């Protein structure tokens, strides 16, 4: 049993290491505009897009222009998605006759998908037409992810360019991320997924008569094509309410493995892209190692907590032992085919990144099993992270680490040969402070006002965990949920909508500003006085900085929710 759980975490991790290297190097070529094997097919499409939109691909942008372009693109995406939902009843591909999505819900969903959060205050199968699913949601799955990749590439350029004021062209990076990186992988994944049993059709819901003669209506739709980008783009919004627990969204252990890998791969690969573009692969490996430590630790803890099960069940005569004939463990909210191990692995992966897809109901996890995903997000989504946002978040943390190290040993802080000065540190602190503010203030408010408390589904400390989790995932642009919380209310739709927008753009702007100010600086050659930003000692330092910044701010909140609940559960207390 132990061997099996080690393999079920170890093999996917080994695959992640193996596949992320070539993908990372490939992305470096794509964004450096070097030749790739996909050019003959994709370059004509690329050229046509630029021609129609009037984009000059050699035109470089300063950090302000780059940010402006990303914001404008985000706003246009938000608007298009809002309008599609509001008019879905007028459009084709609507066999179930879905009516217009309500205005506040449409606002929340548009904010959610255009910021790569993909929090869902609705159930897909009873709300969205196939046209909204494809044109509205599948497309934003691609474009919000491509935006994240583009921004991270711009941040990398900021650090590796020498005395240049520009960071690249947002339109070009966005288009190339979509065409070269996301689309080709999704085409392959979709076909494998359908082969494994995922539906991909445009027909009406299947109306069947079950073996025992009862009517059953089975929701259908173009599932597989959306599923592929849902994980690859760390989006995570489910086609169906049950997300990747739904057998149509995750039919087999193989699809589960591929979904976990796609969640992690781009975030992991970008560290190698960073190393390659920085001309020092070890810089990338250092970030990768730091991320991996957090990831493996969170997997192990979550698997342990969920496999241990619920002590109250044992006293009722329920067998939770892992045996050859059953998975055992806490199976409330979990699927037979995944059991606690593959479920906990998925939960750790989806929150290490900013994905938010789930293959089991996190609200029903044991208190510590549910704390792990929440804690992963509170660390700032830097464990591989959302496509793009994870890398620039980690680079910000690395800058913080060299600054602290500089203070301790009395050296001028430098990162990649660039001096870190007051302006950058102010921006780093802004980046670091915005995140907990966006989580803790609204969570505290929601815990004392009626409109906040009315959404709670579970009594006792678990109810507070539901609220804290909701704002954590919103600010982290994650989208996973303690789904018992009824969040389709004006209060949650509006506040969470704004938290998601702020969590995306208020954090991307300081990151780009840091990059802009770094790009202008001249690199100074490394000397004996330079603090090395590679190797074991820097990894340890970085881990410590992330833990102190992440854990200290959130410890009080976590103690009131999951940690209190854990001790209550151990002592047999119910609510």
């Amino acid at each position, binding site marked *: 049993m132990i061997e099996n759980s080690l393999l079920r975490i170890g093999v996917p991790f080994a695959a992640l290491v193996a596949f992320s290297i070539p993908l990372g190097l490939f992305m470096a070529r794509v964004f450096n505009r070097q030749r790739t094997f996909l050019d003959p097919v994709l370059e004509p499409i690329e050229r046509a*897009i630029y021609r129609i939109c009037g984009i000059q691909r050699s035109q470089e942008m300063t950090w302000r222009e780059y940010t*402006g*372009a990303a914001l*404008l693109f985000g706003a246009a995406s938000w608007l*298009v998605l809002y309008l599609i939902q509001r008019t879905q009843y007028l459009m084709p591909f609507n066999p179930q006759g879905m009516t217009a999505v309500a205005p506040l819900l449409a606002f929340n969903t548009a904010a959610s998908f255009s910021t790569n959060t993909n929090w869902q205050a609705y*159930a897909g*199968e009873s709300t969205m037409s196939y046209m909204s699913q*494809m*044109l509205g949601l*599948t*497309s*934003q*799955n*691609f*474009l919000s992810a491509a935006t994240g990749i583009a921004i991270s590439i711009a941040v990398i350029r900021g650090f590796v360019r020498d005395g240049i004021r520009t960071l690249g062209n947002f339109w070009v990076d966005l288009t190339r991320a979509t065409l070269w990186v996301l689309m080709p992988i999704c085409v392959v994944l979709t*076909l494998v997924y359908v082969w494994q049993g995922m539906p991909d*059709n445009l027909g009406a*819901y*299947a109306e*069947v008569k*079950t*073996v*025992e003669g009862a009517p*059953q*209506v*089975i*929701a259908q739709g173009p599932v597989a094509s959306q599923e592929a*980008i849902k994980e690859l783009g760390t989006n995570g919004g489910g086609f169906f*309410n049950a997300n990747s*627990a*739904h*057998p149509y969204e995750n039919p087999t*252990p*193989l699809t589960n*493995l591929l979904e976990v890998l796609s969640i992690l791969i781009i975030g992991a690969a970008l560290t190698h892209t960073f190393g390659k573009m920085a001309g020092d692969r070890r810089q990338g490996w250092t970030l990768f190692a730091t991320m991996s430590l957090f990831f493996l630790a969170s997997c192990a803890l979550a698997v342990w907590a969920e496999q241990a099960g619920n002590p109250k*069940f044992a006293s009722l*005569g*329920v*067998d939770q032992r892992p045996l050859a*004939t*059953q998975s055992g463990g*806490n199976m*409330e*909210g979990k*699927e*037979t*085919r995944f*059991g606690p191990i*593959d479920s906990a692995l998925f939960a750790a992966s989806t929150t290490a990144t900013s994905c938010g897809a*789930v293959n*089991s109901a996190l*609200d029903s996890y044991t208190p510590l099993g549910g704390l792990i995903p929440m804690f992963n997000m509170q660390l700032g989504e830097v464990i591989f992270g959302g496509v793009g946002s994870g890398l620039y978040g980690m680079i910000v943390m690395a800058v913080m680490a060299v600054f602290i190290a500089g203070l301790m040993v009395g050296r001028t802080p430098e990162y990649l040969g660039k001096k870190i000065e007051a302006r950058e540190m102010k921006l780093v602190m802004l980046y670091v402070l915005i995140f907990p503010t966006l989580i803790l203030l609204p969570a505290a408010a929601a815990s004392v006002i009626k409109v906040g408390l009315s959404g709670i589904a*579970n*009594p006792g*400390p*678990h109810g507070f965990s539901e609220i804290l989790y909701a704002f954590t995932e919103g600010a982290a642009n994650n989208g996973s949920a303690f789904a*018992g919380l009824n969040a389709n209310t004006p209060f949650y739709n509006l506040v969470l909508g704004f938290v998601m927008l702020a969590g995306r753009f208020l954090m991307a702007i300081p990151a780009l500003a840091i990059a802009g100010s770094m790009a202008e600086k001249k690199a100074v050659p490394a000397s004996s006085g330079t603090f090395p930003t590679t190797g074991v000692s820097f990894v340890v330092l970085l881990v410590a900085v992330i833990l102190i910044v992440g854990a200290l701010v959130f410890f009080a909140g976590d103690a009131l929710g999951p940690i209190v*609940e854990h001790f209550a*559960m151990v002592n047999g207390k119910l*609510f």
Partner: protein
Amino acid sequence: MAALEVWRLTRLALIAVKLTILLTVLTGLVYPLAMYGLANLFFPAQARGSLVRNGDRVVGSELIGQNFSSPRYFHGRPSAAGEKGYDATSSGGSNLGPTNRALISAVEARVKAVLAENPGVAPGRIPVDLVTASGSGLDPEISVAAAELQVARVAKARNMDPQRVRELVRKYTRGRWAGIFGEPGVNVLMLNLALDRANATPPSR
């Protein structure tokens, strides 16, 4: 200067709108419709939802669980999807937390029901998946232990040799993928259809 800024911003906004529309159509219409075409060309059965026929009647999907209550059939897991369970237009779990009294009393009631339906089962030996609601509410499978527990009841209700029933359970058990990933499971719908084929007439009284 200000006029120049406004002009540049307008130009950027215009590009943003055009590129949004273009990429939305490419990734939201061209891509999914192309994949729809390929999926239905190569894997038509799966693309249409892996529907299962019994004779000329569609009785469900291989991937979607359904309610079974007769003692002649193997029963699936408790379901929180919809009012009556296994509502495939309303997927989802119970979302009950681990210290919620409602969860514990639900499990307690299910344990009692399992013991009543399957006399002879040792208390303390009830597979956890049989008394907990799945994440989707549509779990098509149960654990091997949960199937073994029901063999005696099903065999008796059908007047079948338990050994024959056990063989069918084994036949419809899916192992781990590559021997490593996932948990073994028994597909309840496919097993019950096989039982009906093996023993078409109701048991003699």
